């Protein structure tokens, strides 16, 4: 446990340091371009193009007519998806490119600890992004109408755990298949489209809803919205919570198994060399 924690904290520290030294404030600002695009489009559509006239089906699906707040919550928490997939999802790939992967594998430390540290770093940076986006959203008219603390914190915890599992899976794919950006980029886009980040999944075609049903983030975002934007009591769908628990377990187990297999494959096939 001690070696695991030391590896985790050490990895988190250097990951954050490297990120800031590479990107600094410019990179920090650029991280917001994509979510700001979603927020801007949502605001313009809601307030200017359609004059706050949302459809009945949207109101039924979202338990609210406030489309802008709906998108703010979705986009703000989506930063965890982006942060995880682009940090954790490519950690071994980039360390291999720098030639450091060999050095990590040379040590007796826990590989899981090394990866967990990167997740911790990604989570911390995403949390800062979340707060900034909530601030911007608030300035533009975002309203929190309720706060169900147990559901909120449980959802965040499960969301992060499921993303960790997904990140482990993507990390393995990225490393083994030498895939620099495609997997992370595409998964991020697919989660953005099919999890109901910018529109309730119920309004999408049936096949899209089936895709969304296997993504843990779909349930996490439903629960987070229910905990922040409900206008009536009893609007939390506890079925979503159970689905989230189940899917999180599946992704965590799969991710962990794949990590072990990946480490073995790296040692067996000498996948240390620069791409």
């Amino acid at each position, binding site marked *: 446990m001690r*070696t695991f924690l030391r*590896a985790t904290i050490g990895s988190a520290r*250097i990951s954050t*340091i490297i990120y800031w030294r590479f990107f600094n404030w410019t990179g920090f600002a650029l991280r917001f371009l994509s979510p700001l695009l979603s927020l801007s489009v949502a605001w313009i559509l809601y307030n200017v193009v359609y004059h706050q006239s949302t459809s009945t089906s949207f109101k039924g699906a979202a338990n609210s007519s406030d489309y802008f707040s709906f998108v703010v919550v979705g986009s703000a928490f989506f930063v965890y998806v982006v942060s995880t997939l682009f940090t954790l999802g490519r950690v071994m790939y980039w360390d291999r490119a720098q030639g*450091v992967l060999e*050095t990590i594998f040379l040590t*007796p*430390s826990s590989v899981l600890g090394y990866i967990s540290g990167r997740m911790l770093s990604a989570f911390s940076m995403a949390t800062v992004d979340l707060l900034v986006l909530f601030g911007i959203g608030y300035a533009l008219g975002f309203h929190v109408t309720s706060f169900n603390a147990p559901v909120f914190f449980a959802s965040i915890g499960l969301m992060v755990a499921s993303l960790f599992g997904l990140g482990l899976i993507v990390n393995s794919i990225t490393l083994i298949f030498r895939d620099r950006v495609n997997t992370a980029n595409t998964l991020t886009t697919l989660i953005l489209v099919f999890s109901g980040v910018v529109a309730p999944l119920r309004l999408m075609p049936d096949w899209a809803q089936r895709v969304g049903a296997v993504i843990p983030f779909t349930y996490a975002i439903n629960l987070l919205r229910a905990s922040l934007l409900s206008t009536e009591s009893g609007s939390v769908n506890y079925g979503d919570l159970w689905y989230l628990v189940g899917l999180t377990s599946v992704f965590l187990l799969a991710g962990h198994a794949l990590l072990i297999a990946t480490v073995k494959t790296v040692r067996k096939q*000498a996948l240390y060399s620069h791409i």
Partner: protein
Amino acid sequence: MSTPDVKTEKLVRVYESKKRRPIIGAPKITLVVAVDNLDLEIPQGELFGLLGPNGAGKTTTVKMLSTLLTPTSGRAWIRGLDVTRDSQKVRKIVNMVAGGERMLYYRLTGRENLNYFAELYDVPSSQVTRRVNDVLRRVGLEERADEEVEKYSKGMKQRLQIARGLINDPQVLFLDEPTIGLDVDIAKELRAFIRKQLVEEQGKTVLLTTHYLAEAEELCDRAAFIFKGKIAAQGSPSELSKLIVPRVTIELTIRGAAENEIRAFADHLGVKTISVESVEDDPSHFRKRAILDADSEEIIPRAFEYFHARGASVVSAGLRQPSLEDAYLKLAGK
């Protein structure tokens, strides 16, 4: 007899080499045997050299011993610990330093890199600062420790690599071409450091791979030639030289003898003449320099007698013992 620090038994490593495939079709796979039934033993406190051309299997051997690579078959032990079954324990007592500029985080400072690896090696928290300062001092990087590695020169990066290689105070250290690309003076300092501090003072066991045969001659207690994954010969550098090139090269400068007379002398003794040429700074071309390939230095006094009897004289005689380079070239078929 104590357990050797490093031991291998029929160690084999086979790589699959895939040819890039077109959009349709299966890739072509070729099997490359990088290490072929390698048997090696290195006792504690020895500096052992592994010499061979590119692609001979040196780095692959080192990576298997340091647990970075899984052997295809065969076994290896570090201080009695199996590198496959006890890999975690092996990693605690070994470290590896490779040549080149990689294996470091460029955006971190030297100190930050070392602190990080100290964490990964589980160096006791109370000792991390002292250990990091100590290794930085030993490699002469104290003053630049807080600058980002991307600003370091090549030599400094290599020294930081060495520092990283010492951070866990390993009992067995693998140095994979550590002086490659370094300036002559830096490389010389590094060699002295390896020999004096690591091996003689601290008693570490070091396995060194190198292209530079002079380096191996200078440093190694014993060495082995490896070609195409197999050990061709092993022993001390002088044993290796004599084993493979059991002859000496004699240089004689003779005054008053013609070339054909010198060649006749060599034929008379059954000695091969490598070359006979006039000495450059002799305008009369009266002095000749002969290089002979003999099996012992005994022909030198015989040369004195022979040429003196014929009215000539041997002005100087030199003896060159076979070097590792001679041995290497002979083994490599050149």
